[in-house]
């Protein structure tokens, strides 16, 4: 149980990362690939937050002056993840707009068929 409590989040986040990577590697569909990137991004965010987590910690928010900072989880990864989430959604939006344009031009989203540029 203690193993689970220490590592379950790590297992979860790296599973997500690996599943995401696998999707990108194997699936030829552009939107599927973008889903893969999105999954990977979620996994990375989860990983970062987990890094800053302390067992039985409290959120890094003071609601009264008397609150003690000792048990608080690390706020920095959370700040980083906020940034990362926004960057992720930015990339995602751009990727999807590209996918729309690709579909306009090629009539397909199959990356194996979108090979005008090669060699």
């Amino acid at each position, binding site marked *: 149980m203690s193993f689970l409590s220490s590592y379950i989040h790590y297992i979860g986040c790296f599973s997500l990362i690996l599943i995401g*990577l696998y999707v990108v*590697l194997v699936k030829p569909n552009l939107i599927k690939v973008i889903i893969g990137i999105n999954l990977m991004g979620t996994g990375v965010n989860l990983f970062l937050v987990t890094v800053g987590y302390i067992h039985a910690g409290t959120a890094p928010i003071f609601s009264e002056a008397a609150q003690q900072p000792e048990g608080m989880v690390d706020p920095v990864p959370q700040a980083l993840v906020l940034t990362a989430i926004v960057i992720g959604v930015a990339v995602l939006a751009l990727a999807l707009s590209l996918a729309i344009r690709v579909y306009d031009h090629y009539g397909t989203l199959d990356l194996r068929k979108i090979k005008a540029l090669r060699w």
Partner: protein
Amino acid sequence: MSPQAILITAFAGAGLVFLAGKVHSHLRDFLAVLSSLALVGLIAWSHGQYGPDNEIVYVPDFLGMELALRLNPLAWFFAIYIAIINAASVVFSLSYMKGKEKLGFYYSMMLLVNAGMLGIVLSGDFLSFYIFWEIMSWSTYLLISYRRGPALHAGMKYIIMSLVGSCAMLVGILSLYAQFGTLQIAELGEAIAGSSSGYVLFILMAMGIAFGVKFAILPLHTWMPDAHSEAVSPFSAVLSGVLVRMGMYGFLLVMYSIVGLKTILNLGAGFFNFHYILSWLGAITIVIPTFIALLQNDAKKLLAWHGIGQGGYMILGMAFGTSLGVAGGIFHTINHGSYIALLFLVVGAVEYRTGGVRDLNRLGGLIQRMPVAFFGCLVGIMGLIGMPLTNGFVSKWFIYKTLITEGHPFLAFMAFVGTWGTILSVYKLLHNMFLGQLPEKYKEVRKAPISMQIPILFFCFVIFLFGVLPGIPLRAIQGIQDTMGFAPLQLTMWGLASGAGALNMLNICFAIVIAFAVVLLLMRLGAKPRRVPQEDSYAAGSSVPAGKYHHSVEFYNPLYQMISPYLKDRVDQFYYWAADKAQGVFELTRRIYTGYAGTYVLYIISFLALLIFLQLAWEIW
């Protein structure tokens, strides 16, 4: 005159000519001739002004190195030789190039090549040597490509080999710098003295590849026939006369000025001695190209192959490291420059008047139409063969003499064989261009214009002058040899005064003049020849109607059939094969970029996995 002034004149001339070409064509031509002649003047004037006054650091800090120029006997000798041949070619170009396109480019590149070569010989350190070497290389490349068509291919061949050479040279030079912390030629000589023979050999190899490519020593020669035959004729003269001989300058500089005579002679053991191998390479370079030349029907290709072959003599002389041999090598360099330039100019003149024909099977009988060109050709091939009274005789004499006194009968035999081949092939050149029947279409051919005749006659004069009075250039060569630590030769104005190898051109000259007079006398005494028009020819007593003339085609056909299977340029074929294979590999390599994004991501992940795997397996960090 300081070397700096010479170089500034040279480079400024090249730039100004280009700009002048935008303004007016006469101004451009005038400036081109003026600056090339001015260079000859400047260099001639600076004769003898050697020593520390003329060692100039012109860039004190180029990436932490000093760039210096200097003038010494070796530099001066080569500089004047470069400048003269270039000036002659520029003068020759005036009418040869008239009406062609991009003349501003042509003249400025001509002068830039010239400037680059002058820079090479005047540079006092290897970095500026390399810089000027490269400037010369790329400007030459542009000039070779100037004629378009097959010239493009020739240019590519040239520049690729040249790049290989310069990469090797760069490695060699910088290895010297890494080893000794200086690139000053003067200081390197002392620094290198103590280093191991393996290192010296490495340096010689690295530099030797670069010089060998330029010099067209046998396995590295394949660019030369194409380039020489495809370049415009005045530039072919420069190319074959001087540019190729920059390799000679390089060899002299590295072998004798820097590494030093003693080290060179003791490099390697027994038969596998450095200068031994070099001389064998030289000998092979004499024989094979000369016989390939025999098979050529393109006048310029024929000359180009001779250019390679004659280079073998120079190597042969120079590699031995005896006073006589090196003197012969250097002397042969300038001699060869004079008559090969002459021959290229003659071919150029013929080409100019016949509308670009250089196929020997389609020419003939031009002797009366172009007498000056004929005379030039005659003198040129006399020099090439090495007939007495011409300078070629003297230098070849030196070289043979060296071979015999050093006891190398095989090498001497190969050199002789080379000379026979030369005689056969240049006779073909002379005959097929000027003797025999005149084809109908060349009836209207006129004499070469005066601006072509001047350089031709000038070179004829030089050939005879140095042939009769070899002391003039040999003095200068003596000066060079002094700086390299060779034992002095006993020179006279007429030749060599030392005991066994004495050579007195005065006597020979005298003998020849007498013989000539006797022959003339005999001919006068015999039946008077009756002059007939050239076209009026008879066979078996009846006149041959026009259109049924036998022109001299397929010279040496039986010989050709006999030897041609042995004389394929297998090296060239090998290079082509290798290039072909390499291109196949390149094409395969391109397939890495499949165009499928998933594959690219696969590469990324494999890279990551590889890094992790390496660490797991071998602990790379």
